[in-house]
């Protein structure tokens, strides 16, 4: 069986979630690998959410917000635009390929674009393979916990 990546998507309420909804109502098909979480704004997406998603088994994280300049809260997406590159640096330092985090701007009318992004990202993660995080939980046996 081929590897099916798990993708967590943080979609902003005003543009991207509506865009994803449009893809649905227009019966456009995209891979079921994406699990969407609706947030009020892409500016709500804390780098900690992204790291937590990876820790809990996500192979990729997709963050989508309104196009720059179109934010419902004026500059929430501008904050996201600066947070995600810094989050990628943290991922790189922790030994996780930064390409596993993707930031895209999707408006409420871009259902087709949303479908393309999800399809393409899923395909990319299939090629990259699963993300395996080691030594998160303490395992005495693994560490040679006792005296030799």
């Amino acid at each position, binding site marked *: 069986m081929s590897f099916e990546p798990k993708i967590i998507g943080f979609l902003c309420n005003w543009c991207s979630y509506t865009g994803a909804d449009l893809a649905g109502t227009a019966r456009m098909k995209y891979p079921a690998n994406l699990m969407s979480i609706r947030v009020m704004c892409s500016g709500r997406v804390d780098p900690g959410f992204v790291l937590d998603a990876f820790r809990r088994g996500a192979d990729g994280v997709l963050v989508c917000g309104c196009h720059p300049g179109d934010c419902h809260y004026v500059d929430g997406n501008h904050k996201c635009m600066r947070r995600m590159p810094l989050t990628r640096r943290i991922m790189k330092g922790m030994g996780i390929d930064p390409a596993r985090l993707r930031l895209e701007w999707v408006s409420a009318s871009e259902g087709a674009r949303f479908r393309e992004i999800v399809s393409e990202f899923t395909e990319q993660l299939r090629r990259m393979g699963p993300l395996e995080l080691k030594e998160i939980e303490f395992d005495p046996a*693994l560490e040679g916990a006792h005296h030799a």
Partner: protein
Amino acid sequence: MPKPKLAIYWAASCGGCDIAILDIETKILDVAAFFDVIFWPCAMDFKYDDVRAMPDKSITLTLFNGSIRSSENYEIAQLLRAKSVVLCAFGSCAAEGGIPGLANFHSKEAICEYVYKQSPSLEPGNGTMPQPEVRAPEGLVRIPVLWNTVRSLDQVVDVDYVIPGCPPQSDQIAAVVAAVIDILSNGKPLPPKGTVLGATEKTCCDECKRTRNVKKIKGFIRPFEHLTDPNVCLLEQGIVCMGPATRAGCGAKCVSAGVPCRGCYGAPTNVRDQGAKMASALASVIDSTDPEEIERILDSIPDPLGTFYRFSLAESTLRRTQV
């Protein structure tokens, strides 16, 4: 009535926590008068076998400093957990891995390779590596096994309370000691398990006396590159100060002296990952909406991971670098 028993232990630590305990000055006499100090390797001569011989739950309070990064640290953590009624993670290392936790950016092999083979201070050609077991003329000699991943105390045993800080501030230690003596003398109830003692719920910025304005940052600098304004927020002046993502309790001592907060009191209440929270705060005050300029500004952050996770890497969401 016999005195309550007190144990103080150091695992992977520098000894600064033990000094901080002595720094409570004359109040140390109250400690000695009230408690029977039955184990404190840094200050007095005790043997592990003395502790092994004690009945379970016979130590009233154990202040455990240092992180867990060897089989010896782990063994004594388990031992003191079994012998103690209350086990308290004392200081950043026990609470969240601390400075030794930065070893989690590397593998054990890479660390040993550098320390024992490449470090410039080594005798040339002497490639001796530590062996867990060596047969000497006197018999078999064993040393503890070094771990690949540094752990905080609560990752390996059950912990009752946390006193953060590198080291915890002496006035806070004195206040905790006074509270403990009061609780034990007057039969008062203990605080709920998991309580962070000797600190507050808010962030270091809350205690900082510097003036705060709207922050708009075009680039980051190191403190020595700039003569800082002593009255204005350091972050506003482009110096990475961990205040926004650090628990208050120290009295903002570093920032009062012109040194940016390093984050030793750990993440504030309801924050799981101090480094990620700092990244979030820092990115939001960058003054740019141009992706290329944003990358350039982010490039100017000196050692972002080592700064954001200086004390909390071992307790962070991802724990370590995947190697």
